[in-house]
């Protein structure tokens, strides 16, 4: 179990014993910083939370921890720290681009413009570059257009509108442009946000009366990159604000790049003047990769992850997973994790069985032959791993936590009443635990 899983389990126990309001107030943004033998350090957001948790829940937490980990806890300490720092640090230290810090200083020193600015939406992942984008038939045009934009921002195609289904590389291209621009000139002021963030910022600016801050933030920049612009549809005031932002940037020859899951014409409740503006520059689509591209992507990912697979197996995976690249990567991760854990060499059979079964249980189907096993899985996750209901729902194809609750209740009852089911569940448990040992 990871520290996070342990803490989630502790929280789900605590949640049962205290009121929701109390729980939300005191346990929000808490987590385990370190867990070494019998010494646990918790991070809490501030001294108030620390004082409360220490006084009211100290013993409870120790007991929960002992029960969940089956280890004796000798010392439980508290540390005031931002949970985000903790998780980011342990997961990936290089996730924030090195420019982020400089950016702040730079903007402060150029503050003489009376309109200093920072781009708080600035979260460009340096992982996405043009070099590691696998170009296929479906993405050739989009790739070329994005490259042209990165070479001559604001001149070649403005705006650039990229559309296509989920997990086909829109965001990758968008961020690749940003990274390329930053590589050429680290001082470039790029605003990269989702349409939702844009709307939220706009609403916040209305509420706090800081519409000038908002304007400065979005208008005094070198390039504006908005992901999933279709979400702006139907939000009239945001659309209008975006319209003005767009015009201003376009007039100043600043590059605008937008992505969406469908072409501008097909976005409902989008004002005509915006539609026509989107169609002004260049509209490119990315479509699902063909078989060869999928195989090439898999090959590249395998090299990145240092886990070479036979060409045959690659082809099997590329045949089974057809829909999008995100799923392709997910499938690959699963194969790698499975075989590394079991210390096995992947074979065509093992890969096939691995990909077929799990997909279905996590899928949308409500057929009994799938839904019942799914419910049993939920029951086991709840009772044996003590996972929280929302986490279980997420794990099994993003289902609602109430679905998980229902499944748990239902199977619990049936296990009590039906001997056969009880035996089967026991059998599953045995297989799971014996394999583990």
């Amino acid at each position, binding site marked *: 179990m990871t520290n996070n899983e342990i803490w989630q389990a502790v929280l789900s126990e605590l949640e049962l014993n205290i009121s929701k309001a*109390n729980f939300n107030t005191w346990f929000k943004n808490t987590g385990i910083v370190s867990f070494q033998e019998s010494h646990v350090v918790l991070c809490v957001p501030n001294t108030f939370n620390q*004082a409360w948790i220490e006084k009211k829940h100290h013993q409870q937490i120790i007991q929960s921890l002992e029960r969940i980990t089956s280890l004796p806890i000798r010392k439980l300490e508290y540390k005031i720290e931002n949970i985000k720092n903790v998780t980011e640090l342990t997961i990936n230290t290089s996730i924030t681009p090195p420019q982020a810090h400089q950016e702040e200083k730079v903007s*402060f020193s150029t*503050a003489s413009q*009376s309109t*200093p600015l920072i781009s708080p939406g600035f979260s460009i992942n340096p992982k996405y570059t043009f070099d590691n984008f696998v170009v296929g038939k479906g993405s050739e045009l989009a790739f070329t257009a994005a490259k042209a934009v990165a070479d001559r921002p604001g001149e070649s195609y403005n705006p650039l509108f990229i559309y296509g289904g989920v997990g086909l590389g829109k965001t990758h291209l968008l961020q690749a442009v940003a990274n390329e621009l930053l590589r050429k000139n680290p001082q470039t002021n790029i605003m990269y946000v989702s349409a939702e963030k844009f709307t939220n910022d706009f609403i*916040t600016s209305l509420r706090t009366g800081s519409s*000038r801050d908002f304007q400065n933030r979005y208008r005094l920049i070198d390039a504006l990159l908005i992901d999933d612009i279709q979400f702006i549809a139907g939000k009239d005031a945001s659309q209008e604000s975006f319209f003005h932002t767009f015009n201003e940037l376009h007039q100043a020859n600043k590059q605008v790049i937008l992505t969406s899951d469908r072409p501008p014409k097909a976005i409902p409740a989008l004002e005509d003047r915006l539609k026509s503006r989107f169609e002004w520059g260049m509209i490119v689509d990315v479509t699902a990769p063909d078989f060869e591209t999928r195989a090439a992507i898999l090959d590249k990912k395998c090299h990145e992850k240092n886990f070479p697979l036979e060409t045959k197996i690659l082809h099997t995976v590329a045949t089974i997973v057809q829909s999008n690249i995100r799923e392709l990567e997910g499938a690959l991760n699963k194969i790698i994790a499975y075989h590394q854990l079991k210390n096995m060499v992947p074979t065509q059979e093992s890969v096939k069985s691995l990909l077929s079964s799990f997909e279905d249980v996590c899928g949308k189907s409500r057929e009994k032959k799938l839904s019942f096993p799914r419910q049993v899985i939920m029951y086991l996750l709840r009772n044996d791993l003590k996972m929280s209901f929302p986490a279980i729902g997420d794990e099994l194809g993003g289902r609602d936590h109430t679905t998980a609750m229902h499944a748990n209740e239902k199977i619990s009852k049936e296990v009590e009443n039906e001997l056969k089911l009880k035996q089967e569940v026991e059998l599953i448990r045995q297989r799971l635990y014996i394999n583990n040992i």
Partner: protein
Amino acid sequence: MKITCTKENLSKALSIVGGIANKSVNLPILGNVLIKADDQKTEIIATNLELAIVVHVRSKVDEPGSFTVPARTLTEFVGLLSEEKIEMELKDNELVINCGKSSTKIKGSPADEFPVIPSVHTGTGFLFAVDELKTGMGQTVSSLAKSEIRPELSGMYFGFNTSYYAGLVLAATDSYRLAEKRVAIKQGEGEFKIIVPGRTTSEIIRILSLVETEDGEKNVRFLVGENQIAVHFGNTQLVSRLVEGNYPDYAQIIPKEFKTTATLDTEKMTKEIKTASLFTTTGVNAINCSFEGKEGVVKLASISSQTGEYNSEVVADIKGDDNKITLNHRYVLDGLNNLKSESAVFKIINADSPCLVTPTNDPNFLYIIMPIRQ
């Protein structure tokens, strides 16, 4: 719990803590004040989970105990009492208050539901003269950023014994203007750079103005701990969390050399700027200032497509080149209001560089306004 105290003492204590006792959706008990009586003393406590204020109230404790009641109800009620002596007793989850011939029961919640107030055990102590600190914080507080977009700018910077200044430096900026004040440290050593939340700074200023010390104590004590700060003054103690993050290195934007210096009357300038502000475009608030050395005036001009235009002059002692700059009237007024000096000095380089405003009677305060670029 059973205590007796005077109306005056209780009323004062409630007015000090009352400001932060506000109901929160998640935790309604935050709208209550905690009354805590032990053998030696009675404390009135309120918190909003960012900061907490504890006031000691002189009282006779017959029976120790603690209880919480809604802050507003208690404050308003005590304010209306006519007798001086107040008796409070906890009976069956109600606070019974006897005063003169009246008897009241106020419903409340048990004290163990009230947040635990963190105590600052370890930290470094500093001593300041109350008046100096209060004035200094008052002069800078209005420059704090109102929004939380950059949390570090929504708080006030406190630099203790930094290489920049051996004393306390207070700074506040919303990135359009900046106010900086230097305050002497009477006692205390060690270098610290902390950011105190905006709300906390207003409460500290309030406490420093409201609390009357009995022994005529003129010093306020700060205790700087990790992630938190405690302020002791008279019978009142404030504990607050600090804002995470690093304060921007603002010193680098303060210009060192200027082309034009104008010394003028603060009051006249304030009046003219106010008048000119009526004729600016809302949202832009631009006033054009031209510094004319030969005529010895600063010419102010504003124009709005809706209301009209305004031209005026303020007599000034101008040294250096003739110069022009466009400034936001709100920022100029905020600065002038905080100078606390009869005459003001405006120093500028050109239309694109920051404008420095200082009082003539205090070398420890400075105010910087970013110009509006044309």
